[in-house]
């Protein structure tokens, strides 16, 4: 197996995922609308009720919409990870996974490539959301003006601006968290017998992970409200994904978050490669038929 073959195959897998993503425009809009509803409606309501004290990485008081933005970025990635694993279950059921698995490429490479492809798709969604969030007034790291002119019809200036450095520093964090959620989704997809069971599993995973985390409230506030809930949030990997993104968005590294995310990624990935059996659906149907006979 040559390196050229591996590179071409990886590029092919990423290219196919991108094509599928571009053709499913509703998926892209759903990915944006979901967190925007939280940001615009939910955050607006809580902005008045909830004050966020100064906690790292913030150096000043922030509004609630600024606080929940990293959590919403992680939510986009979590949904994308689950969507990607749903597509793997679909591919397995529909048979197109067989095309992938009957090539002379190692199974771990194929799974890892699918995982990377799904992370790349999630990055498009995340950056699009960051830009939209800024357009609706969330005070994230501002774009750097190169050449601007004031205009009457816009509250500010228009011209040539470039993204802030924070957009770059958050990228490694987003790749890691995207891979962690993708690996978790892959692990779930390898344990799911049929497509129909997937929606239930997603509800069991996505919502508890999101709500029982530091995405909506800081951990110290959770501790004041309920100690047992605080511990659930503390041991929830989603909390640490949110914190890794939050710190990276302000050019800082939260080492605990980084360790937890990398640790979980390795565990989820190892388990999913070990557990992934493409013939599962076929074998179970055949075994079921044999038992019925």
């Amino acid at each position, binding site marked *: *197996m*040559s390196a*050229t*073959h591996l590179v*071409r*195959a990886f*590029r*092919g*897998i990423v*290219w*196919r995922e991108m*094509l*599928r993503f571009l*053709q*499913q425009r509703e998926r892209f809009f759903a990915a944006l609308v979901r967190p925007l509803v939280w940001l615009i409606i939910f955050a607006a309501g809580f902005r008045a009720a909830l004050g966020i004290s100064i906690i790292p990485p913030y150096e000043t008081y922030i509004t609630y919409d600024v606080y929940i933005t990293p959590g919403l970025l992680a939510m986009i990635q979590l949904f994308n990870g689950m969507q990607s694993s749903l597509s793997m279950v679909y591919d397995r059921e*529909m*048979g*197109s996974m*067989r*095309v*992938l*698995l*009957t*090539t*002379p*490429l*190692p*199974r771990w490479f194929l799974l890892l490539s699918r995982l990377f492809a799904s992370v790349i798709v999630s990055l498009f969604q995340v950056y699009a959301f960051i830009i939209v969030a800024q357009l609706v007034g969330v005070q994230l790291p501002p774009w750097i003006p190169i050449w601007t002119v004031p205009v009457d019809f816009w509250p500010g200036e228009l011209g040539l601006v470039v993204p802030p450095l924070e957009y770059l520093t958050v990228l490694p964090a987003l790749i890691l968290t995207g891979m962690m959620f993708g690996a978790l989704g892959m692990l779930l997809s390898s344990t799911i017998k049929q497509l129909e069971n997937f929606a239930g599993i997603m509800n069991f995973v996505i919502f508890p992970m999101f709500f029982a985390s530091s995405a909506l409230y800081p951990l110290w506030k959770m501790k004041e409200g309920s100690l047992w809930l605080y511990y659930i949030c503390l041991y929830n990997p989603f909390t640490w994904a949110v914190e890794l993104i939050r710190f990276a968005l302000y050019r800082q590294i939260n080492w605990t978050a980084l360790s937890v995310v990398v640790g979980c990624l390795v565990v989820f990935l190892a388990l999913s490669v070990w557990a992934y059996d*493409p*013939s599962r659906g*076929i*074998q179970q149907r*055949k*075994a079921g038929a*044999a*038992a019925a*006979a």
Partner: protein
Amino acid sequence: MQREASGDGKRRVPVLTVKDVSYWYGSKQALKDVSFDVYSGKVTALLGPNGAGKTTLFSLITRLFDASEGVIEIAGRSAAEWGSRALGPLGVVFQQPTLDLDLTVKQNLRYFAALRGLSRKDADKRMEAALAALDMGERIEERVRSLNGGHRRRVEIARALLHSPELLLLDEPTIGLDVPTRSAIVKHIHKLAREDNIGVLWATHLFDEVEEDDDLLVLDRGRIVARGEAKDVVAETGARDLGGAFRLLIGGEAEEDVAA
């Protein structure tokens, strides 16, 4: 009873060797000590009623299932030793359609070519030739969803041939197709085997897809019950045609499952 019909006496090198392969689904044995060879330049028809074990056998050859017993070698490479690399010389058309419906014919084939390590330029050249040979050159930019079943099958065959495989596996590829399309595909595959020296293993339960000088394997309840050239198998059973021979070989139990 297992029968071996005589061949043409020439020494041939197998492109696929299956030796003493057995497989179980739980406690139910699906394949029992299956052994046979497939040779370059020949179509080997694998005939059997529904549930005979044809798809299981294909899943083992393509490594979708791991063979618990026995040896499978593709062009001299055993899956046990070579792992997934043993699948290099293999092209497959599955019974279940596996094209991405939302992508165009070209995008589907380019994706497969990339998985096989072909460059974009080489892939485009090969796909044009493969599609033209199947009268599908005009449809290259169309979405697969807009193609009928016969055209989708042709695209799948073109895809399986893109990387110039030494062995082509076809798992009931003509199922659900009309007679002219079926006939065209059968002719094309036989031509490919002869002209490009490809070994073909063709699982079917349609007798008219088997030509008299094809190699034939009859699989029944997980066992090979006859093998040899089709005409020799028919002669050995004393039947008038392949349908009669088949019914005799499997005890007449599967008349409803097969068709002339």
